[in-house]
């Protein structure tokens, strides 16, 4: 039989469109800030499940929820906040009540190592001319940063104008914590607001945000409805929640789910 070009084309398209059924692959859509811990988790998971491959799509949680609601094929969704997980539930991508908290995080302010704006404390962020980058409002890290600013403005040490002064210094609303960190690492921005876990192993200066003002970011994980590998999805989620999984998350600077009260 001769292979007609059209048939070859169809075969090539089919090969692009999806993996063959016997390749055991679990696809995880995870918040950009989970890149380091989840990559480490996957190594151990793959070692424990021979023949299984974990494929990641790391991006801002809001982008992932939108992709899932538009029908992207995935097995697991890990969101950096409850709002984007709720949106995936509303969109019919995730079953209501199936999400579990896997870890917590807190915000820190990061500065380039040479600290071009000479920032010594949080109050300096309100100084005119300081170039600040935060997440866009729909990006969980951006929503948390605004919550922190709201709380900081209540503190007489900063004063009510603090929030507006810092927001006036914002030069870019980024689509993920990874993009914020890159712009600070390159020295283009004087300061950025990211998660504490994003600073592990990076050449950055950090300023801690006092616990009283800081927000508790919570990561949620859930199996995706109609995911191609429901058994593997369950196994991966169970592994993330296991003692070993939680230990790996803690190594990356995340706060394990059990340690802070809900």
């Amino acid at each position, binding site marked *: 039989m001769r292979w007609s070009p059209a048939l070859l084309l169809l075969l090539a398209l089919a090969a692009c469109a999806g993996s063959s059924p016997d390749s055991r692959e679990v696809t995880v859509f995870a918040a950009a800030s989970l890149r380091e811990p989840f990559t480490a988790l996957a190594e151990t998971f793959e070692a424990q499940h021979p023949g299984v491959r974990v494929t990641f799509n790391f991006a*801002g949680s*809001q*982008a992932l929820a*939108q992709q899932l609601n538009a029908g992207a094929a995935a097995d697991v969704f890990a969101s950096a906040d409850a709002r984007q997980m709720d949106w995936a539930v509303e969109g019919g991508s995730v079953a209501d009540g199936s999400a579990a908290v896997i870890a917590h995080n807190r915000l820190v302010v990061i500065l380039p190592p040479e600290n*071009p704006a000479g920032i010594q404390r949080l109050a300096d962020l309100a100084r005119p001319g300081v*170039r600040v*980058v935060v997440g*866009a*409002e*729909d990006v969980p890290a951006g929503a948390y940063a605004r919550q922190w600013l709201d709380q900081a403005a209540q503190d007489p040490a900063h004063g009510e104008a603090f929030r507006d002064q810092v927001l006036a210094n*914002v*030069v*870019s*609303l*980024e*689509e993920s914590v990874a993009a914020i960190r890159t*712009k600070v690492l*390159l*020295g*283009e*921005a004087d300061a950025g607001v990211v998660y504490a876990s994003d600073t592990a192993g990076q050449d950055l200066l950090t300023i801690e945000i006092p616990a009283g003002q800081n927000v508790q970011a919570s990561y949620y994980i859930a199996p995706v409805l109609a995911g191609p590998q429901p058994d593997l999805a369950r196994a991966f989620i169970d592994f993330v929640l296991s003692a070993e999984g939680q230990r790996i998350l803690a190594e990356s600077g995340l706060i394990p789910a059990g340690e802070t009260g809900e």
Partner: protein
Amino acid sequence: MAENLHQTGRWQRPSRLPSRWRESGPVWWAVFSMPVLLFLAIPVLLLFFEVRPADLWMQLGSEQTRQAVVISMKTSLISLAIILLLGTPLAYLTGRFQFRGRAVLETLIDLPTVLPPSVAGLALLLAFGRRGLLGAPLNDLGLQIAFTQAAVVGAQVFVAGSLYIRSAAIGFALIDPEILEASQLDGASTLQQLRHVVLPLSRYALLSGAVMSWSRALGEFGATILFAGNLPGRTQTMPLAIYLGFESSLESAVALSILLVLLSSLALLGVRWLSRGRMD
């Protein structure tokens, strides 16, 4: 141009093919053209059914959407002016003169059209960023480029400029040298020659190149988000607003997409209309 050749009879189909092939009309070609045509047309047309016309108008009236439209128009027109002003000499150089290294020069000009825009954005950021070779001295002078509209324009000029330069170079190359010699003999200065001979004779190539560059600048995304960042009211152009709108409000993203489809289609139709004037 093809029509002209056809009318003079110099353009004919080869006649040595078997007769059943020679006689096959456009019907079969049309049938086999359908997959690509439908693939191109359906997604674009479906955009128009995503929102009701009344909602479309409302979305376009919202503050953030309006700002994005204004910034896109402003920056793309400034970019176009810069491309015309600085690109025309380069187009004339590569279009009308033979010299060593011309191939290298033309490759350099063409590079941005095939380079991923994210590469362009990264390169611009590393060159003109605060620590960049060019950005550091500018920063010392108090000029910051990253995160400003200057960076938006820079990204657009970098990515879109080559379309105009290439089109203009071809237009300049097609001018008959004898006409230029004649005008020189008549005592025309270089500027007079440019104004009364070169530009009128190549106006179609210049205009269509300008329109193509402008539409490409209007659609610039990857280089902009890396080099200029994303701030509504300052650096958020329509493509950036679509990308972030896609995540928060699908309606406004669709409204902006429809606007861009209409603007780009009008630009392409304009090029066709210009070319029709030239064909007859």
